[in-house]
């Protein structure tokens, strides 16, 4: 009997939870705020679904409701992606070590 591809996706999912568990425990507590903003940014990879929704089944620019919802979702996710990564960058830039020469 063939294995349903769903089982493979489920395996990826479960293993990723474990990776997430160990990786996040190793994050230093002082970086918990950047952790939240960066997880925010990467969860906006949902934009992949939004792009498919926006473009799919559309060949001569007669947009369906489904396409338009996709476009709106693209904008929302883009706010998050750009905002999330840039604000994380801005925060991380501020974390400085004590100057050695003192």
């Amino acid at each position: 009997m063939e294995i349903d591809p769903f089982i493979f996706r489920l395996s990826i999912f479960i293993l990723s939870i474990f990776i997430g568990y160990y990786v996040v425990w190793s994050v230093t507590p002082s970086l918990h705020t950047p952790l939240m903003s960066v997880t925010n940014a990467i969860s906006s990879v949902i934009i992949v679904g939004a792009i498919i929704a926006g473009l799919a089944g559309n060949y001569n620019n007669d947009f369906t409701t489904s396409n338009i919802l996709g476009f709106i979702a693209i904008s929302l996710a883009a706010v998050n992606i750009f905002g999330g990564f840039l604000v994380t960058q801005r925060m991380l830039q501020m974390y400085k070590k004590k100057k050695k020469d003192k």
Partner: protein
Amino acid sequence: MSANLSAIFYLISGVLFILALRGLSSPETSRQGNFFGILGMTIAIVVTFLSVGSISSGLIYVLIFLLIGGLIGAFIAYKIPMTAMPELVAGFHSLVGLSAVLVAISAFLNPEAFNLGFPGSIKLASLIEMSIGAAVGAITFSGSIIAFLKLQGIMSGSPITFRGQHLFNAILLISIIVLTYLLCSTQSSNFFWILLTVSFLIGFLLIIPIGGADMPVVISMLNSYSGWAAAGIGFTLENSALIITGALVGSSGAILSYIMCKGMNRSFFNVILGGFGASEQSASSGDKEHRPVKSGNAEDAAFLMKNASSVIIVPGYGMAVAQAQHALREMVDTLKKNDIKVTYAIHPVAGRMPGHMNVLLAEANVPYDEVFELEEINNDFANADVAFVIGANDVTNPAAKNDPQSPIYGMPVLDVEKCKSVLFVKRSLSPGYAGIDNDLFYKEKTLMLFADAKKMTEDITKNL
């Protein structure tokens, strides 16, 4: 681009996201980590373009909408003050939730585009995944909006409760399962819309009973939800980048919620069921006695600190409200010039989100190796001369250690009372969010400095 090839690229971006989180294990590697995250996102977006947008004219619209969102996001990222970070993160969570909902609706209306079957006969597994993604997304959206409004101060931070609230929420949660079942057995779009509406309502009802100071837990929890929503959509779209990311974000948020709950010695359910501040406050205000406190001015504080050899600073939410972090850094600089050793002690739940205080201190150019977590620094209080508590209260309350009757009993606290003297910068004697009195205020060694945190810190600097 073939489906197999794009699947491999999605896997690569998933791995890059793991590296992005891994980078945050230390500030030195964190910037590189963020770069990996950006790279992973770029790969995912480009690959999606290449696999669906076969240079069709729709591509230009995608770019336009991407640009609009991107510009807004970039503008916000540069303009937002660091003290507003909790609101920003809550706001961003709501956007992830809403996009998950929109993608799910879109897939429901046009399942052919996603290879899920046809309207009215969508594959069962896809329908279940879609419902989960849409429901969790909707809860994330409305919950984050409420969290945002509370943090922004538009909505009162005090818990809003009504009779039968828990029962009502439980019924709604059960109805989600029933609706998903009905949706799957009938394929009727009506059930889909009702499911969405109920989910929006749950998100709203879940967050309104939670008080302002429990926000660190709420934000972490919503962070986790946004991840599970993304994973749900990832299963629907059969996209490994989304599944991996969703799992990472989901577990990250869950761990942060756990850390925050532990920092308050409360169970997760206790926080979620809410109404903490409301009931305790009324109980304690009745038997309030007027005990004498020693209050001082900036000169007294400056004198005490000038004669100290080591000072530990304990910042709290009040410092964020007063925007006192820069003034505080200047005061510390002056102290250091007088050869006084200064360190910072951060309680896990200080502020309104995990790591809130660390970011603010970093913004004020405080080197991160002078900032310590509770476990690292708690033993040092006994050897320090002065503890300078600025805008914090409950996290220093000794009642958590020696009064089993206290609502915060068992919560880990900073051993501020072991210092030779304690300075409290506070606007008034009012209790913290837990609604309980702090014995430390009335101790012989405590000097209360009643003033705005920023103004007081500036005045102390002048007197040093």
